[in-house]
């Protein structure tokens, strides 16, 4: 089984702002 110790709930919570940004960046790539 792959070692996924770097993927924690804590870290997932922290990267929410960046993920939000990436999501809306993708929306703006297609929306017009």
């Amino acid at each position, binding site marked *: 089984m792959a070692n996924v110790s770097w993927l924690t709930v*804590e*870290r997932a919570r*922290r*990267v*929410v*702002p*960046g*993920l*939000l*940004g*990436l*999501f*809306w*960046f993708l*929306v*703006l*790539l297609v*929306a*017009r």
Partner: protein
Amino acid sequence: MNPSYSHVADHLSDLASFGARAPVIGILAIATFGVADAVAARVVISASRTAAVALILAGVAGLVIAAARIHCSEGAAGCPRSVVDDSTWTDVLHGQAVVVNALAFFVAMMACAAGRVGAGRAAWWRPTVVVLAVLGLGFLSQAIGEGAVGAWQRGWLLTNSVLLLLVTARTPAGTQEGRG
């Protein structure tokens, strides 16, 4: 919705403008970047207070950008710029908030690179943050001129998002608000 809108040539702000069809998408997109900056401030505050303050400023400016919508009376596509006589106070405020957002975000990233965010981590981290921040600011400065403003602005948003991911993921565990 805005059939002739160009992702390359037209500004992002045009999608959120008075005159655009379904402006809520553009408004939400811009506002979300402001909210993301403010949320990121909460993550990095214990590692760099300067970065957190700058991110809050960037976040507030982002919300102002979303709220102070520009005017595109003939629709989002090909919305003209620099027509001073047609500018309202919201157009002017919008432009000023873009500058504040960009500079505050840049300062925040420099503070992250210089501070304890990412401390003890891989050697590539600090130079990557600095290079991406400079690249992002370069993209946005290109968007001030004529040409592929939409493409430059999207490049700026992409670097913003990646930087937020980098600085929040690399904040040392245990240094966040509410943890010692």
